[in-house]
């Protein structure tokens, strides 16, 4: 029984280790806001979404596979949520059973397993029924396959066989088992046998092997205990097999919960974005080496939940650009733009929709962020040193066709030095095939790259209207020697706005 809603060929692993830069990404891209919306109070959904977003897919095909399933979910949200609820209930069987069973004897293991399997069998039946009723409305390869499996493997005949096994093992004082002579001539290799067959055999061979019997007296407490131990050895393997079977069935429910959990999280996010008037679309993923990257109406999905109105969308055409340098006014939306690029990339590679009118980009091998930080509270490093240290960490992990988002990197020193460091980093990164979006106030740097007239470099600027107002729009434009800090100064000191 496979779920395979997250990947055509693999089970989803909610415990998978995250890439080294996961924490940094989460912090720099404000992933927490998005995850809270996805979770809607369900911590498990949050975890699943977090794993999915931070361990993105690397194949166009795999992304399309999830996109199709997600499209089915958007068409039938109620059915998907009902399936998820059944999965959750199945998994919780284990938690309920833990309450009143102690794992101290083969018999308690056996009885606990019988109890849990009884409940799980009910869950399986309900899953099958949901599949029976709704299979025809789903188009995606993933759902079609899952529903088919549920209907074929969990038919009534099978569920009946399960029930019979559970019934046959309930008797707590009986056992019929085979053994051989082990150490000390004590019985060993105890194997529980099906008792019915003995009578059958005896009927066929009436002169069958003779037997000898004895009875333990009711008052022989040691004898009774010894007998119980003996039975324990006899049922040990069956108890183990049944407990393992319980685990396997629970594992199936667990996987179902995890994989459906991703889509339920997507439904939650979608509902909330729609409510805030933020447009979404399924992005167009391209192979990593493709130099095409452009978007229309690209928005910061996280920012949408901090504003009263939908955030400003940006149009970007960065086709065949290895390096994008963003300059311009303070408070002009540069960081927001950078975050919108990063979030869209993560969401695309998780198989989700993105907050844009349209979006296409190559798959990146790794996404890295290098954002300006507060002073290191531990005082172990100076600020520039701390930045260099982080960039060095990135350099350890980064590969060609990765995407690096820098936000005011190397601003912790004077402009000339910062520019020199940054220039060398950028040159090395881009030559190694890393795509870089670099938000900066370092005019030396921006100007120097600009003078090189590189085809692979794109210059964007935060728009500032002549009266000093910000549109929060990022538009193509060469770097200017000011970031309009004066504007801030004037605004804060209540001075009249003006151009330089």
């Amino acid at each position, binding site marked *: 029984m496979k779920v395979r809603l997250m990947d055509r060929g693999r089970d989803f692993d909610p415990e998978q280790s995250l890439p080294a830069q996961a924490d940094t990404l989460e912090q720099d891209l404000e992933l927490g806001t998005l995850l809270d919306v996805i979770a809607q109070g369900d911590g498990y959904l949050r975890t699943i979404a977090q794993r999915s977003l931070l361990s993105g897919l690397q194949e166009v095909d795999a992304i399309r596979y999830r996109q199709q399933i997600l499209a089915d979910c958007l068409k039938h949200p109620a059915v998907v949520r009902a399936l998820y609820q059944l999965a959750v209930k199945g998994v919780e069987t284990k938690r309920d059973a833990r309450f009143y069973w102690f794992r101290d004897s083969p018999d308690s293991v056996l009885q606990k397993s019988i109890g849990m399997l009884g409940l799980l069998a009910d869950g399986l039946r309900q899953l099958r029924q949901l599949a029976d009723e709704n299979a025809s409305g789903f188009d995606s390869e993933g759902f079609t396959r899952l529903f088919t499996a549920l209907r074929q493997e969990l038919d009534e005949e099978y569920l009946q066989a399960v029930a019979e096994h559970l019934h046959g093992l309930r008797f707590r004082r009986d*056992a019929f088992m085979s053994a051989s*002579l082990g150490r000390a001539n004590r019985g060993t290799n105890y194997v529980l046998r099906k008792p019915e067959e003995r009578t059958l055999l005896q009927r066929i061979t009436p002169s069958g092997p003779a037997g000898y019997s004895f009875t333990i007296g009711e008052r022989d407490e040691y004898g009774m205990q010894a007998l119980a*131990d*003996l039975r324990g050895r006899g049922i040990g393997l069956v108890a183990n097999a049944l407990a393992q079977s319980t685990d*396997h069935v629970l594992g199936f429910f667990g996987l179902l919960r995890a994989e459906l959990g991703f889509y339920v999280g997507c439904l939650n996010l979608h509902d909330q974005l729609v409510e805030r008037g933020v447009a979404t679309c399924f992005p167009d993923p391209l192979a990593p080496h493709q130099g095409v990257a452009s978007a229309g109406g690209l928005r910061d999905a996280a920012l949408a939940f901090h504003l009263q109105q939908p955030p400003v969308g940006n149009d970007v055409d960065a086709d065949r650009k290895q390096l994008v340098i963003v300059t311009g006014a303070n408070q002009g939306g540069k960081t927001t733009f950078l975050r919108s690029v990063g979030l869209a990339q993560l969401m695309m590679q998780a198989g989700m929709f993105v907050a844009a009118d349209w979006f296409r980009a190559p798959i990146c091998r790794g996404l890295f962020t290098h954002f300006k930080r507060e002073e290191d509270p531990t005082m172990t490093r100076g600020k520039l040193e701390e930045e260099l240290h982080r960039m060095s960490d990135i350099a350890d992990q980064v590969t060609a066709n990765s995407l690096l988002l820098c936000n005011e990197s190397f601003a912790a020193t004077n402009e000339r030095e910062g520019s020199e460091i940054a220039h060398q980093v950028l040159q090395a990164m881009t030559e190694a095939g890393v795509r870089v979006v670099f938000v900066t106030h370092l005019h030396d740097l921006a100007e120097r790259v600009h003078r090189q007239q590189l085809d692979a470099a794109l210059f964007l600027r935060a728009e500032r209207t002549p009266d000093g107002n910000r549109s929060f729009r990022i538009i193509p434009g060469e770097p200017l020697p000011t970031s309009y800090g004066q504007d801030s100064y004037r605004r804060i000191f209540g001075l009249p706005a003006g151009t330089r």
Partner: protein
Amino acid sequence: MTQTDRRGVHAEQVPAPARSSARAKFGSILFDDVQEARTERPAFFIDLNLDQVVDGIVGGRDDYNLTPFFHTPVERGDTVGYRHEVFRDLEKDALRAAVDEFAAAMRRVRSYLALVEKQPYVHETQRWFVDAAATYCGLVRRFADAVAGIEVESRGLRRFRGYLAGYCSSPVFASLESEAHEVIDGLQAVRYTVRIKAGRVTVQAYAGESDYTVEVERTFARFREGAAEDHLVKVPDSGSMDHVEARIAELVSRLFPAQFQALEVFFRAHGDFVDPVIARFDREVQFYLAYADYIQPLTAAGLAFSYPVLVDGWGETAVEGGFDLALAGKAGSAAGAIVPNDFALRGAERILVVTGPNQGGKTTFARMVGQLHYLAALGVPVTAGSARLALADQLFTLFGKREDITTLHGRLDEELVQVRAILQQATSRSLILLNEVLSSTTLEDAVYLGNEVLGRVADRGCATVWVTFVDELADTGAATVSMMAGVHPDDPSQRTYKIARKPADGRAYASALAEKYGLSYPRLRHRISP
């Protein structure tokens, strides 16, 4: 006063010789002649901290009672060579592995035989007995095969190998082996069923009923994804039969009478089947393994051990990189921090007079010299990178116990009595270690007494280490060598623990210049990183 004395040896029971005279002769892996291990601890053990060392060596091998072997230095230099050969052979991994396997199997045999004595039900005890016999036969044959395929050079192991080969092809062994296997094969083939129904137990021969576990697994196979956690619960088990099992065994024996009769016959026929020569080897070879295991971590930590070359006279004594085994054993993995020392006696030199600051490593040095000679006489690798040593016939120690106030009164007298007793027993082949003795008096007296005693020691011709703070004793003639414990020139509170040949000057500033150039011991050591 403490001393060794060979005359008061308590001989242990001599094991019976091999039963068949047709077999190759073999006596002991420890002695190439007749010499018995002593039981009492040599009196100098505590002064040399050898009690701690031996406790550490034999620890975990209590069953073998190895301590007597470590209390018994060999009488002939030839036996030292005999042991060195065995040690070198056992350094081969293949042989070591074979001996370890042999020893483990012998322990198993003994534990089974102990159960034969202890357990109440015959069906159980007879089975332990035949299992013990089968284990024994298997281990003997495996070990014989293993050593036959390994290059061994020692006289001891060559002889034992020959003995084993003969034993393996003896009719006694052959019948023990084949009968044990027949009996066990018969019992292992027995299959029966037990039906429990509300207190009634029925035992029958197994008739092919199907496995319930397999059915359950088949039913749920469609949910199986990879390995599952084990839910096997261990049923409490005493390891031996309870009375219900004994009754079941009784019924099984009625269902399978032939197999159980064969067991009974075997039990009656083969009494004490363990060969005494093999049993003796099993114990004695642990002497080598115990010592090798004890020094292995020290070697790994960078301390060098070596097989000493035995020389005839004291004047050929030369040791490089010697250290205190007790100190190294305590340091464990930090043994690399142990400071090794060199010493030598050349020509007519017999007496090492060691002076220098307190806590400078002087006592450790004296112990080290004593340990080296004792270990050499045990025939084991000694605590030095290289060593030329004479076998001492006796070892005497007299270590002053400075901190004990109660003995202070009359201590000088007491020590003089003890020194006199030592001088009466010592021969030119004896080693004497004197540590801070004859000092409970004025300096002038101490110089006088020291000179007197040194003169007598020199006359006797025995080797002596004298640790003292009386510098004057360090220059008393051709037989005397002055050695000093070193300190750091720029911080005399720091000891180097290096004991070097040089005139006693009461201070150690001579190396100040070396320190300036970064050539002091710790600096240089630090600079030359591994």
